[in-house]
């Protein structure tokens, strides 16, 4: 298991679940397609190191490091 904060740019990972969090934030991520089994790719980091730029289900999404840490991930072997 790993967290978003451990990902490197260009790396892909599979979402395996959510850590305990405020329901509103989770609901939004779920609606955006960050469901279990979905793949995310870290495609960039903002100039000051935060937030992150992720690719999910064909579109780009920006999340803050600390907030996105609620995603439980599994690294994908390339």
């Amino acid at each position, binding site marked *: 298991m790993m967290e978003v904060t451990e990902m490197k740019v260009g790396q892909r990972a599979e979402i395996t679940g959510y850590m305990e969090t405020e329901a509103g934030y989770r609901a939004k991520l779920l609606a*955006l*397609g960050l469901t279990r089994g979905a793949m995310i790719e870290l495609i960039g980091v*903002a*100039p*000051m190191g*935060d*937030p992150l730029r992720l690719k999910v*289900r064909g579109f780009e999404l*920006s*999340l803050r490091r600390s907030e996105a840490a609620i995603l439980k991930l599994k690294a994908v072997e390339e």
Partner: protein
Amino acid sequence: MKQRKVTAALVGNPNTGKSTFFNAWTGLHQVTGNWPGVTVEKLLGEIDLPGGDQMTLVDLPGIYSLHAVSEDERVASEYARGGEADLIINIVDAVNLERNLYLTLALMELGKPMVMVLSMTDILERQGFKVEMGALAERLGIPVVSANIQRRASRQTLERAVQEALATKQRQVRVVYPESLNQAFLKAWREGEPEVRAVHRLEGIIPGAEAVIASVEAVLGTTPDVLIADARYDKIAELTRGIVKQVARARTEFGRTLDRFVLNRWLGIPIFLGIMYLLFWFTQVVGGCFIDFFDVLGDTVFVSGLGNVLTLCHAPDWVVTLLADGLGTGVQTVMTFIPPVFFIFLGLSLLEDSGYMARAAYVVDRFMRLLGLPGSAFVPMLVGFGCTVPAIMATRTLSNRRDRLLTIFMAPFMSCGARLPVYALFGAAFFGLASGTMVFAIYLSGILLAVFTGVLLKHTLFVGDPAPFILELPLYHIPRVGTVFKQAWERLRHFVFRAGKVMALMVLLLSVCDKITVPNFYAPECENAAPISIVEMGGRALAPVFTPMGVERENWQGSVALIIGLFAKEQVVSALNTLYAIETTAGTEGQLTASTSELASETDSLPDEIAPESVPTWATTRAAFAEGIVNAFATIPEAVAGLLGTMLDPLGVSIFASEYEQAVKVMETLARADRSVEQRAAGLAKLDAVLGMESLHTALAEATVTRDAIAQQVVQNPELQSSLDAANATLEDVVTQLRHASELRRFAMALAEQTGGNEALVAAFKDKVEAYYRDSMSAELESDASLMETLRTKFDHDKNRAFAYLLFVLLYVPCLAAMATVVREIGWGYGMILFSYLTILGWCVATLYFQITTGHTLTWVVTPCAILAAVAAVFYAIGRKTKVKLVV
């Protein structure tokens, strides 16, 4: 056939081209309003369906799901779930089909008739793909049509689909939820209500199933909303299989390449700053070109025009004062804000529509988080350096109410352009060469106090968690002119008719107070002094309050000017100017005259009052009206001519004329060897424009005529001698200016005649320009010398005293226009909190600064600190009380 009235809700994800579609369908048949209890805008459109039915289309804010966090989302979710809409029109972005279908499924569960409108198909096609709309419609069981309804035929297809949906009972697509949730559904369901309510309870959209959610989490190890979302996305995968077909080879994506630069680790911030600079320049400078137009127009029509007409109709004086000077001035004030507000919205719509806005928020989010704000709050802050009014309006782009309030509370700290003349005056009088540093220190103080305010409010008044940051980075596209203008226009209209109303009333109140006079209690008893206005009276009564910050009692003008500054902060300068001038003359002639408003109008663009002895006739009124209109239009080309020069100085920090620098540049070009005859001629023409030869000649002619006319009258009426002197002085000034300009022009002519480059001539020219520049500067200073001297005396030749005063000017309640805008946007409650906070903070900071540097009175160091502590305590108490409302 009976005509039916139906209501349809337009629902979709953000960035799906929803507004474009709404505008294309409803055209001009739109009305705006507000959702009850919130500041979210409500947009309605009327559509005549082919069968004769009438449909009201309600444009809802963009949402990703029915789970609402922000105010906008709650409005959209509640309306979609509620019973008001007969039909749901779901706009779906073809490029992000999967994600958009998530909302579609949630909407279909509501069981209402539905039509799906597919947008962005052109972009998808450019990427080489195509959506099989027929197959999708069949699988979903609802009509699917294209959002591109420019053509008549496709519009008819859409309208037929709407009727079809209304007529048929919708076949439901069933999402198969995991069996493990069955028990939970039953427990969350209440007898007699639709099943979908149980789903919403488990998702947490509506409360009432907290215990069930907890037990599911305990048993299955995950909350039900995750399971529900999984099931929906499984369904979506099934629905979309084979629906999106590759029809061509994908072309290289321009947006990817662009993002490589725009979001680059090193280039990201410079590009961001560059674009923000352009936005600022566009709003302040380009927009600023039209301010004088609206100002003069407003005066011509609503102030002097209306005043003249009323006088001619024999209206009583108080009616003229109330309507023309009061309400008219109010309307005029609102009008002067039309250009900056419109241009900021034009700029913002442009950035939003192109897709850059989201990227800007991404780039600066980390930095803005230091202030406790999201990245998108940067724009309002920046705009605040130009004018607070559009800055407050720009906070409308922030979706979270807490962030919005915080941003509005911090925006007035960004020192706006109107305060600059005040700094400039004091800079010239007290700081000399260090003026620049002083102005910089003021701006910096504003920013630091904004940060202080942000930290204070975060922990007291607006306590609670900041909104999490979830930002979609949409694809770039070329902004659509129609949409951008439409959006800017909508927002401008909102400003004029909502904030404008409050603004006009506030100005009316203050103007009337400025006109009503009371006996002067302050004048020495032996003299029969002229009455003073209520405003002046109030200012003098308040003077003791300002003593601790260094405005002594003898300097009551300083305190009156602060009240006049409520009209607009730059009026502090003209008020001081006039009030000090009165006192100087009063010393010699022994009487006080003139109300402050008369003075303000003398120096500023406020209405030229009708001189008491000249009674207007219809003819003069008509002539004045025509002239006013002509003058109003004349301001535009004048302003536009100076546009390019401001590119490098949008704040107007270098207040001193740059025309002579421009002249030097023209000269240098002329001196270059490779110029053709035509280019030289063009250069000369440009020089004439820079030097303003034409207007100088006109001024000369006018001044001569005026002088001669007065000279004739003086023969009969020796009392007019002083006007003659004034006219002579004006004439002399014009002649001097013209002489200098002509001299510069002669140099240019000489250069133009030479064929080769001539460095020596250019150097001589430069010397000349510098000499002229020095002369005109010192001449300007000389005319102000007496004002400067009075100012220095009044402020005890003390830089710290002056600086404390400027700190107060920076901080105390913003001008009436900004106040009205704030009230419109956040209501009287928070508005009053903001105004009181600003004024109290201004007083405390100014007093602390003055007492620490000059005053050295312990009481006045302790008191401000105690007051600030009390303010923090009050904020803390209010914050705890209203906490719940803000977080929802």
